[in-house]
């Protein structure tokens, strides 16, 4: 047999970059730290700022004595809230979720009153970082203590103590979404009145701390009437606009740079008080100023996340067909409204129905002020809370009906042939197949064997019981269609911008407005552009994070970067090809319509041997000696993409959990998940995002909780007591994917950054409950500390409150001793 080579296919088509598990090109510098972390910045004449913080949760400032600090060695200036009161404005809140929302105003530095432990009351500017740190304890502040407002359910009662005495209640807003009124569902009250079965539960979605790896850091350099700010932020573009509005420094005189940023998880989606203060101080002194927080400051003063009390009612027929969902939540705002504080629960409002076909739905939320640090975005922002509620209540319904929890879900979820499907919350889910993802996840887990083992352990009354928990979730990603944001009263759009610059040597600069803080944009964007333009991966550089380099952008959060920002890049690349096509036609003396573009080369159909690469065209237009009359000598292009809809990743997460009934210790035996995130550009990055998300979601279920004592001290003030799990505490993850391409963007991607974090928490809690339901346990409050699990098993209830005293390790290294005061009421009898 003779093999003949067909000359037309002899040239091997270049391997597609999209879908390739490339190692991330940015990792070497990020991991070694040999990069532009903000704190690595050193400028000539730079001063260092430290922040004196309130040790009390609520009080009037009666006196601030800075005289000793002013005379300390190396100290250049000490400024109080009074000194900056006229120029500091208020930290902006971009999301007034209702027309009558009450915003008490948020000074960057307290002037008359402090409202949470850790609030800034003075700043020290010194010639060295240690001099600035040394002078903190020399500032003497007197407070008249006010009763701290700490418990939301107490705070909303009539005649409760007030967090802010200039407003008349602790409620910031009352937000309602009613499907009946919106025309997206039936009458909820009627649905409940007609239902065979109603199950009601109160869930606590505890307060969490984003705990990003790189602490917040900011450097401000004044130069004439211009200011450059480097900040460890997720949102340099938003920050620039907001700082201009807050400080009055004209936007065009302000450049914001987010250099390499070491994680954020929403915690750096903020206009931070310290950023405003650093800018004001640099302006006042005319010198560069740096502030880098300590980990203690980060835990107590950077915004927190979650913190909702959820009252959830589900209505169903006896056969398990859901009839209605009613959700009322108290959402802790903390002491002030920061950038999107009130919007987080409002965003979640639309996700409580999950993947189920509820005919009726009503959501009500009260935003409540307490004397704690403000809450704001944290990985998932509203959607994990919603997913937790619906996935927990579906299990409770199954128990009530005596049905298999998966069967109840299956009866009610949207079928694959029903997409696109408009939910009772009015969202149009784009694509997916919940059955297939679930079946694959069960296969990965080895479901029948584990169910069998569970039965054996129950029968033998084994001290270690086994449970299996599910979470069949979806999330709204790709934030966000600008018109939808407008309808929700958000203060900005959700588009993203990109531009592509074709350099004379054939190299390519991709400018993205989607600023990474660890996601791997440089690698993924290079893969996208390599395919679109047919240039080598290595020839592409991705530029980001500097408003002077990437002037337009909406930055990175809400699993939006690839879906929105990546699409802008693809569209810019399409424009580059379109512009190059005209030049190619001219140089090849052919009709544009006769040109094929493939593998980075233009060829003339039917004329073998003629070819011109896009990189050659880049040089040709640089020289500009010979180009068509009617075009500009450039093939560079910009694009701005505004999505029409969200994207809706989904998946099935299954957790098998061992519970030691003697000690209450829970241990994940096996964890399997199958996520549908649409087209996968880089499987390694997707896998990494899923793993990291799982770690954080599992951590909410089992480990993390920001705990305040009765005086409002954060007792989880160090990583000794705010428990973040390490790899040693987490199981192997069995992960898989189904791929249903997102119809809303040319890449087909849905977003993966938050999936693991949103999905996993209820699966873990459901698994633990499944292990001990037969012992009479109905609920265990998160995190499932061994003590809570043990109490729930042996004493009933949900495990109850934890003692609030920090543990005794390190000699009690929490804020109570580093910054705060304690009273006998501060703890449940902890002795230290």
């Amino acid at each position, binding site marked *: 047999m003779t093999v003949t080579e067909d000359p037309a296919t002899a040239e091997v088509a270049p391997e597609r970059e999209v879908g390739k598990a490339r190692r991330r090109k940015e990792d070497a510098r990020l991991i070694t730290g040999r990069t532009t972390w903000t704190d690595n910045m050193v400028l000539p004449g730079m001063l260092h700022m430290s922040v004196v913080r309130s040790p009390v949760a609520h009080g009037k400032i009666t006196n601030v004595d800075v005289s000793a600090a002013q005379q300390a060695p190396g100290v250049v200036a000490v400024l109080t809230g009074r000194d900056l009161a006229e120029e500091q404005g208020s930290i902006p809140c971009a999301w007034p979720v209702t027309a009558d929302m009450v915003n008490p105003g948020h000074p960057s530095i307290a002037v008359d009153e402090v409202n949470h432990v850790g609030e800034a009351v003075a700043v020290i500017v010194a010639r060295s*970082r*240690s001099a600035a*740190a*040394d002078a903190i*304890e020399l500032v003497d502040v007197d407070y008249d203590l006010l009763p701290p407002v700490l418990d939301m359910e107490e705070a909303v009662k009539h005649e409760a103590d007030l967090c802010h005495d200039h407003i008349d209640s602790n409620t910031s807003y009352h937000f309602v979404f009613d499907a009946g009124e919106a025309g997206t569902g039936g009458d909820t009250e009627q649905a409940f009145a007609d239902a065979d079965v109603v199950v009601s539960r109160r869930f606590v979605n505890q307060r969490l701390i984003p705990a990003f790896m790189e602490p917040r850091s900011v450097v401000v350099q004044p130069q004439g009437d211009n200011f450059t700010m480097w900040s460890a932020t997720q949102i340099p573009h938003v920050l620039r606009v907001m700082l201009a509005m807050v400080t009055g420094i004209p936007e065009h005189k302000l450049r914001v740079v987010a250099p390499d940023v070491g994680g954020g998880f929403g915690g750096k989606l903020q206009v931070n008080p310290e950023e405003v203060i650093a800018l004001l101080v640099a302006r006042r002194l005319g010198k560069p100023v740096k502030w880098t927080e*300590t*980990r*203690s400051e980060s835990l107590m003063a950077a915004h927190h996340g979650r913190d909702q009390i959820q009252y959830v009612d589900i209505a169903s027929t006896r056969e398990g067909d859901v009839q209605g969902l009613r959700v009322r939540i108290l959402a802790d705002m903390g002491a002030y409204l920061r950038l999107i504080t009130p919007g987080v629960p409002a965003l979640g409002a639309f996700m409580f129905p999950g993947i189920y076909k509820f005919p009726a739905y009503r959501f009500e939320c009260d935003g409540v002020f307490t004397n704690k640090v403000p809450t704001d975005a944290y990985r998932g922002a509203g959607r994990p809370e919603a997913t937790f509620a619906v996935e927990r209540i579906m299990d409770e319904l199954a128990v009530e009906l005596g049905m298999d929890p998966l069967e109840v879900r299956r009866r009610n979820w949207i079928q694959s042939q029903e997409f696109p499907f408009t939910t009772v919350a009015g969202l149009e889910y784009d694509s997916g197949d919940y059955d297939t993802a679930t079946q694959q996840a069960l296969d990965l887990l080895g479901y029948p064997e584990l169910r069998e083992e569970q039965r054996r352990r129950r029968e033998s009354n084994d001290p270690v019981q086994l449970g299996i928990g599910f979470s069949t979730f979806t999330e709204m990603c790709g934030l966000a269609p600008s018109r939808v944001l407008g309808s929700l009263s958000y203060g900005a759009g959700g588009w993203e911008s990109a531009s592509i610059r074709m350099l004379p040597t054939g190299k390519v600069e991709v400018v993205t407005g989607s600023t990474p803080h660890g996601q791997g944009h440089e690698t993924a964007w290079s893969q996208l552009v390599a395919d679109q333009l047919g240039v080598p991966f290595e020839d592409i550089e991705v530029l980001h994070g500097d408003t002077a380099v990437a002037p337009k952008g909406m930055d990175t959060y809400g699993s939006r970067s690839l879906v929105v920002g990546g699409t802008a890049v693809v569209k810019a690349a399409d424009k580059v090809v379109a512009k190059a096509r005209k030049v190619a036609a001219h140089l090849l003396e052919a009709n544009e319509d006769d040109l094929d573009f493939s593998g980075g080369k233009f060829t003339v159909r039917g004329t073998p041997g003629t070819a011109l690469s896009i990189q050659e065209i880049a040089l040709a237009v640089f020289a500009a000696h010979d180009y068509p009359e009617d075009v500009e000598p450039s093939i560079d292009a910009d694009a701005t993409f505004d999505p029409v809809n969200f994207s809706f990743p989904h998946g099935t997460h299954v957790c098998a959990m061992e519970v030691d009934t*003697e*000690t209450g*210790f829970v241990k994940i035996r096996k964890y399997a998940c199958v996520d549908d995130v649409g087209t996968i550009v880089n499987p390694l990055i997707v896998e990494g995002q899923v793993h990291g998300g799982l770690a954080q979601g599992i951590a909410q279920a089992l*480990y993390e909780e920001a*705990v305040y004592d009765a005086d409002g001290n954060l*007792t*989880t003030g*160090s990583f*000794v*007591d705010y*428990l*973040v*799990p*390490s790899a*040693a*505490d987490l199981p192997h993850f069995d992960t898989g994917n189904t791929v249903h391409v997102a119809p809303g963007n040319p890449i087909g991607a849905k977003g993966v950054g938050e999936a693991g974090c949103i999905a996993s928490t209820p699966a873990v809690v459901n698994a633990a409950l499944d292990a001990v339901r037969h012992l009479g346990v109905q609920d265990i409050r998160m995190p499932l*500390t*061994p*003590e809570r699990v*043990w*109490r729930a098993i042996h004493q009933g209830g949900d495990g109850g409150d*934890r*003692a*609030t*005293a*920090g*543990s*005794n*390790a*390190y*000699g*009690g*290294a929490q804020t109570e*001793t*580093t910054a705060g005061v304690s009273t006998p009421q501060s*703890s*449940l*009898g*902890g*002795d*230290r």
Partner: protein
Amino acid sequence: MIPAAFEYARPTSVDEALQAVAEGGEDVKIMAGGQSLIPVMRLRLAAPSTVVDLGRVAEMRGVRDDGDALVIGAMTTHAEVITDPLVAQHAKLIAEATETVADRQTRRRGTFGGALAHADPAGDLPAVALALDAEMVVAGPNGRRTVPASEFFVDYLTTTLDEGEILVEIRVPKLAGDWGVRYEKFNRVAQAWSIVAVAAAVRRENGHIAEARIGLTNMGPTPLRASATEAALNGAAASPDAVAAAARSAAEGTSPSSDLNAQADYREHLAQVLTRRAVTAAAGL
């Protein structure tokens, strides 16, 4: 997280160290591995005027055989303890407990003597030293003295070490006979301190438990012996039921704290469960 300014001395012998400590005055702090002291200083919970770093005192490092006892230099690191053949042979309980201390990095720097002198009730090694009837050899301006572990730990983060004194070595009696050991540690994440832990050494003879020594970690301001359980086990049958019965009194005489990880009643319960498990394992049941 910058500590307040301090003077720093780095002696190379015990005599030099004693002198440096004497010269350091009241506010002197002795640094062994620094794994507890440095964080506390960085948090400004401690602001000593002088830190005497024992890191270069070679004579305080290493393990030697001294007849019926092992002598472990106070500056022997956890990592060295874990891999030391003499410790493995004669004081396996110490090696087993030390393996649970913090993380690999901490064990490279943290020291056996430092952990004992720091006397953190949540630390793992004090209860082990107590269970093994170790003796602390203390050097001071007036020479050396030896303090039994049972008298060494006096309160929360407090030992009988006087001003000007340094813990130089620890004498650990070799266990003679058919001993089994177990360190049963309970914590929420791998690198964390013990919520409660139990150190057990059990000698079996003719199907019975001839002797049991049980040290409790974090069941009070100091490490404690589970004396009632020890008494109940002496001469008891080496059976799961006998062990379980004896373990029920493990929390007698303890005064555990209540904190985020556990309230006192739960700690008392844990002490019983963990004692049962530790003794069962140590007895080879």
